[in-house]
Structure formats: structure tokens, C-alpha cells
């Protein structure tokens, strides 16, 4: 089996195995508001046919030969692509790389640009190689404010118009909802913070010792208060940050989040706040909101559906939290009187959470890398 895999690697690396196929370029455009980023893969054979790359005539194109012609290549390619949104967008090649497709080597042009308008339709005109190769096609994938369009550009359909109106509001909402759920799921610090607050929800303190609550209603009410106030708090700061009204240095925010987890876990071991944990959840929730904001900043918010997307993301975070609660609470309630829960899950769990969060705190304060996650 291993030999087979190795053989495949060898065969795939053999340039003679390249296929003959009609010429395609692969154009991926991302338009977010006024900003354009794009990646354009153009076959080296096509560039050679149009511009002549093989300067020493040995039938081999080297990285050096391509690099020497980078300016010509950029000028040639950009003269055959127009993007417009509220007027012509300026485009520039920011870097050059190479890649392989089924039919050989490709130059990869990374393109950035700016458009006059942040909303409205986007027009694209493509005419690469058409004057030399009538079968050439541009395979376009356009991400317009979060909605993906694909099309095949040909000499008879080189000019295309993409309507921003077609963006489904519902689709946009659900997309950000999914992102919210996802970021709770992969945000270990948020999960651990929540767990630290949830672990004691099925317990009460009596005579400086923890014991199980008597009925499920008490536990449920406690959990709902904690989770809802956490959500309310991070929604406030997330919105403030996403709207650009408040901005805090990310290292400070990340450190404060780690500290919140340390304190929440420590409170389980040495109870200071025994009641009104929702207040703790609210207070620290304000800090976590700034953490979500950095995630959202990476995702990018569509200018025309900002509030809707924010709402979707917040709702997604809430759904993600509720999923954790739905699994955790019934189990914890069942086990609340057992030694296993009181000692193993609650005490040892809180210790572990505190230790992990402490490492995070040190990492983030001193900008180190100690843990793998």
C-alpha cells in the first residue's frame, strides 16, 4: 500500500503526465465593500504563448524566467480584467507565486484593489487570451459581500454583471449564525469559562461545603441566568467593537479573558461569590465580547447587512452555548450527589481549568507559546 502511495507521488510529480486540455484560467475574486482581493491562476503555457517566457529556448520555464517578466505579466493580465463597483476599481498585483493544475504549471497572481463604492452591483469584464485562443475560458468564483457566484467567462460572455441585491438576507443571517456556533465550539477559553460557571450550578454551599441542589428547577434557573447574562454582556461589547465604537488592544483582551477563566475556576475551589454568579458572568462577559469581535473582524462584516450579521453571530454564540448546556446540565444534575461529581468533576475539573487558564494567562501576558491550543 505504501509503495502504491509513493508511486502515485512519483507519477504525479512527472511533468510528462500533464494533460492536454483547452486553456482555462482560474479567477477567485473576493469583494467586500470597497475592497477587492483576488487570486488569478494563469497557465504558464498560455503566458508563454502570449508573452514568450522561455528566454533561453530550452522548452523549460524556470522560476527565474517568470520572475524576470513579472512586470510584463502583471501589466498584460490587468489590462485584460476590469472590475467595477460604482465606477472602475483600481487593481494591482501584490505578489506572484506558482501552482500546479491538471494540465501543468500556473502562475498565481495575487491582486488587491479598491472600488469607488462599497455597495451595489459589481461588473466584471474578462478578455484574457481571447484574441489568441478562442477556446480559452475564465473560470470565475466571485464572493460578493459573502455571497458566492460562479461562472464561465468566454469570448461571448466576457462581460458579466453581478447583482448585490440578490443577496439573500436570510442566507447572510444563517451564515453568521453558523459562524457564531462554530466559534463557540472552537473557542476553548469561552467554553472553559462557561463550564466554570456551570459546574457549581447543580450545587449549593452549606457550612463552607458544596452539596447537590434539591430540585432541577433551581439548577435550571441558575444556568439560564448565568448563560443569558453572559450573552447579554458579550453582545453589548461585541456590537460596540464591531461597529468601531470601542477598540481595545487584542493582547489585553485575550489576557483578561484568560484571567476571567482563572478567577471563575478559582471561585469554585475557594468560594467567594456563592450567589449571583450571573453578575460574574455579566462582568466577564463584557470582556469576552471583545474577544468575539476580533473573530468577527477576521470574517468581515458586510456593509449592507451589518446589524443582521451581528445579530446572527450573537444568536449563533447563544445557540452554541445552549448546546453545551443541554448536554451538561442533565448529566450534572443526575450525578450531583455522587462523590464522582463533587470530587472528580467539580473539584478536579475546576483545578484543571484553572491551571490551563493560568498557562494561557502567562502566555498571553508575556506573549509566549506554551500550550498547543
Amino acid at each position: 500500500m505504501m509503495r502504491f502511495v509513493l508511486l502515485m507521488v512519483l507519477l504525479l510529480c512527472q511533468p510528462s503526465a500533464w494533460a492536454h486540455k483547452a486553456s482555462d484560467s482560474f479567477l477567485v475574486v473576493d469583494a467586500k465593500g470597497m475592497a477587492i482581493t483576488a487570486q488569478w491562476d494563469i497557465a504558464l503555457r498560455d503566458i508563454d504563448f502570449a508573452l514568450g517566457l522561455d528566454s533561453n529556448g530550452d522548452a523549460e520555464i524556470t522560476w527565474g524566467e517568470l520572475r524576470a517578466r513579472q512586470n510584463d505579466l502583471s501589466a498584460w493580465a490587468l489590462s485584460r480584467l476590469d472590475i467595477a463597483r460604482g465606477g472602475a476599481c483600481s487593481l494591482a498585483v501584490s505578489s506572484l507565486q506558482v501552482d500546479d493544475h491538471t494540465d501543468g504549471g500556473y502562475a498565481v497572481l495575487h491582486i488587491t484593489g479598491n472600488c469607488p463604492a462599497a455597495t451595489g452591483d459589481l461588473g466584471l469584464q474578462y478578455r484574457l487570451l481571447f484574441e489568441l485562443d478562442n477556446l480559452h475560458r475564465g473560470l470565475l468564483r466571485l464572493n460578493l459581500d459573502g455571497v458566492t457566484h460562479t461562472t464561465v467567462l468566454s469570448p461571448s460572455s466576457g462581460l458579466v454583471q453581478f447583482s448585490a441585491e440578490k443577496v439573500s438576507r436570510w442566507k447572510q443571517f444563517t451564515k453568521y449564525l453558523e459562524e457564531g456556533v462554530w466559534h463557540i465550539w472552537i473557542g476553548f477559553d469561552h467554553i472553559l469559562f462557561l463550564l466554570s460557571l456551570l459546574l457549581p450550578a447543580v450545587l449549593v454551599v452549606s457550612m463552607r461545603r458544596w452539596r447537590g441542589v434539591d430540585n432541577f428547577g433551581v439548577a435550571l434557573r441558575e444556568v439560564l441566568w448565568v448563560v443569558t447574562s453572559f450573552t447579554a454582556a458579550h453582545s453589548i461589547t461585541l456590537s460596540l467593537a464591531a461597529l468601531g465604537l470601542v477598540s481595545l488592544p487584542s493582547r489585553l483582551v485575550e489576557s483578561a479573558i484568560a484571567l476571567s477563566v482563572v478567577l471563575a475556576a478559582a471561585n469554585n475551589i475557594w468560594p467567594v461569590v456563592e450567589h449571583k454568579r450571573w453578575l460574574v458572568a455579566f462582568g466577564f462577559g463584557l470582556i469576552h465580547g471583545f474577544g468575539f469581535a476580533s473573530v468577527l473582524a477576521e470574517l468581515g462584516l458586510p456593509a449592507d447587512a451589518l446589524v443582521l450579521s451581528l445579530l446572527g453571530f450573537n444568536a449563533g454564540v447563544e445557540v452554541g452555548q445552549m448546546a453545551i448546556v443541554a448536554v451538561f446540565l442533565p448529566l450534572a444534575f443526575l450525578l450531583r450527589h455522587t462523590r464522582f461529581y463533587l470530587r472528580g468533576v467539580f473539584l478536579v475539573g475546576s483545578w484543571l481549568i484553572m491551571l490551563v487558564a493560568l498557562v494561557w494567562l502567562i502566555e498571553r501576558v508575556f506573549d509566549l507559546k506554551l500550550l498547543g491550543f
Partner: protein
Amino acid sequence: MLIKCNQWSFKFGLALFAAVLATPALTAPRTPTQDAAVIERLPFRAGDTRAKALAEMRANVLKAPDDAAASVTLAQAYFNLALALGDPRYVGYADAIVARFGSKMTPDLLITRGMLQQYRHDFAGALTDFAAAKSMDPDLAIAHAWRGAIYLVEAKYSNASQECAALLQMQRAVLYGGCTGLLQAYTGQLADGYATLQQALSTTRDDDRRRWLLTRLGEVAAWKGQTAKAERHYRDAVALGQDDGYLLAAWADFLLDNQRPAEVAKLLASWEASDGLLLRLAEAEALLKLPAAAAHIQALDDRFAAAKLRGDTTHRAEEARFQLRLRNNPALSLQVAMDNYQVQKEPRDVRILLESALAAKSAEGAKPALDWLQTSRFEDAHLQSLAKQISQLPLSSKKSESKS
């Protein structure tokens, strides 16, 4: 249980690893570290005779962009390269040269554009262009020859017969022989067709025409079950030299049909770049259980996927064969073969449709092919036996229906 699970995850991991390796689309862009790194190899060196000849023709076109004759020469040279190497990029180059003339077409430009259109299976467009060329120049025999060939592919035999007759009237013996010989072969007169093609062969000394006639003679002889004769024709055709994708494919199919995959593996070893020939190579390697088969099957998968992305459907006959013989997917094969048969109705298209339908146990799917066999009275024993097997199908397909 634990061991089982581990084995499973090991296999899964390995499969995933292989899939990642085998999918070029998944590779990330990279920045080579050395200027000397070779990132692409071109079809030929700038100093090669072929490249020099092309450069000269290109220069002529640049010197006189409005000279239709120079443009036709270059476009035809590109088209011949496409046929020889199985490389459709040259068809695109030829097409762009012809497209520059817009509506100012000469008969030669129209013929060239028609040839390019039939290559892309736009038969209606091609027929129109050939007809327009002929109306501008009634002596243009080649227009009749091409129209005859397209009607044969479309199984419109009375139309084809008219084109052949026109060639006879123009006293173009070789073109007439090729046209009529194939028409006879496709319509229940294999022996007559063979004799007509043989006759045409004896009257020409042109290597290109001889190679084509020898290839078709090889096919007809094979349909007649005359294996030794067919082999001699193929060997004679190969001996004439010059790359010819159609000849290599026909010769490889003959060898595969006669259980000689080892010779196919040798014949096509350096032809991986052509999809049609890679298919035959992979079939041979799979029969020989060679390790290279897996990579070639994966490569074909990638290429069919890439073609789909740009909306290219010219390789459906090959794709059906790939799904049936190498992917063991009769249901998909039948679907693709049926789509292909809508456009192309030559014996090889009929054959893949029958084979797919038989494998998919669908007498219904085979119907168009069975109808063709009946009306054309085509005599190939293999196709007749497939039809017979399918005629016994309804029983078994009923059985499988009642089971489900």
C-alpha cells in the same frame, strides 16, 4: 475491536493522504526558492523544426493580417497539431485566427472554421460552414467530404450518400472511396465497404490519406473478425510515421479487444497527455494489474472533473467507457453513454451504450442502440452478441425489480 478500529482509521488516514496527494486542485500556491527551479515544460523547443515552421507561419500572418491564405495556413497547421497530439489548445489558437475575419470569410476560412467546429462536436455549425464554402466555390470537394463524414457520425446515411455521390461526380476517387466505403461498412455491407476502401487506397500515394484509409480498413477488418488482416493494416498505418491520435486509439482498442494489454501499455507509455489515449493506457494497466493504473485512473478522474468545470462535453464517449471499465459504475456510464449517443452515433458510440446498458441491466437504456443496429444492419459480431444478451435482459431486470 480496538485493533479493527485502528486498522480502519489507518486505512482511512492513508486513503485521505492519497486523496490529498492525488488532487492537484488542493495544492497550495508556492514560492519557489530557486530561480533555476523548472515550473513548466513546453511542447517543443524554440529551435525544433515544428516550432520554426510555426514561427514562420505566425510571422507571415503578422506581416499581412488581412491575407486570408496566410491565416488559413497557420490555422490548418494548428489544427493538424491538435489532431496529432490530442491537444485542444491548438484548436483554440486556430479558432482565434479564423475569428479575426468576422464575417469576411473566404471558402478556405469557412472550411477551416467548419473543421474546428466539428472537432468541438458543433455539427450543425460545421455543416452550415461547409455548405456556405461550397456555395461560394462549387468545386470545393473537401466540403462534401466533411459533410459526408459528419452525416456518418450522426447516422444520417441518406444525407451522407448524397455527399458521396457529389464527390463521385467531381471525380474525386479517393474522397469518394473513403466516404462510400465507410457508408457501406456502417450499413450492413462490411465486405463491400472493405473493398471500396481498399480500392481508394490503391489510387493514392499521399501519406496522410493512406494513413487514414489504412486505419479505417483496420477497423472494418476487425468488425469482420479478420484479426490478422486488421493487424496488418494498423501496422502499415503506424509504419507511415507521423503522430496520429485517432490511429493510436483504434490500434490500442484492437489490441485490448484481442487481450493484448501488454502491447498497449508499451505503445501508449508516452501518450499520457492525451485523454483518449490515457484511457486506453489505464485500461491496459488495470488488466495487467500494474501499479501505475491507480494514478492514471485518478488523473482521468481529475481531467473529466476539470472538463466539467468549463462545460466541455466532447469526451463523453471516453468518460462513459472510463466509468464502466475503470470505475465499475454502470449506472453513471449508461447515463453518459446515452448523452453521448444524442450527439455521436458511430459504431464505437453504439458499443459503449450497449455495454453500459448490459452492465446496468437496462434494456430500456439500450433501446436507441438496438434500434440503430436494426435499421443500419451493421454486421459486427460483437455488437450483435451484446444485443442478444440485452434481449434476454427483461427477465433478469424484472427479477431485480421484484426483489426490491
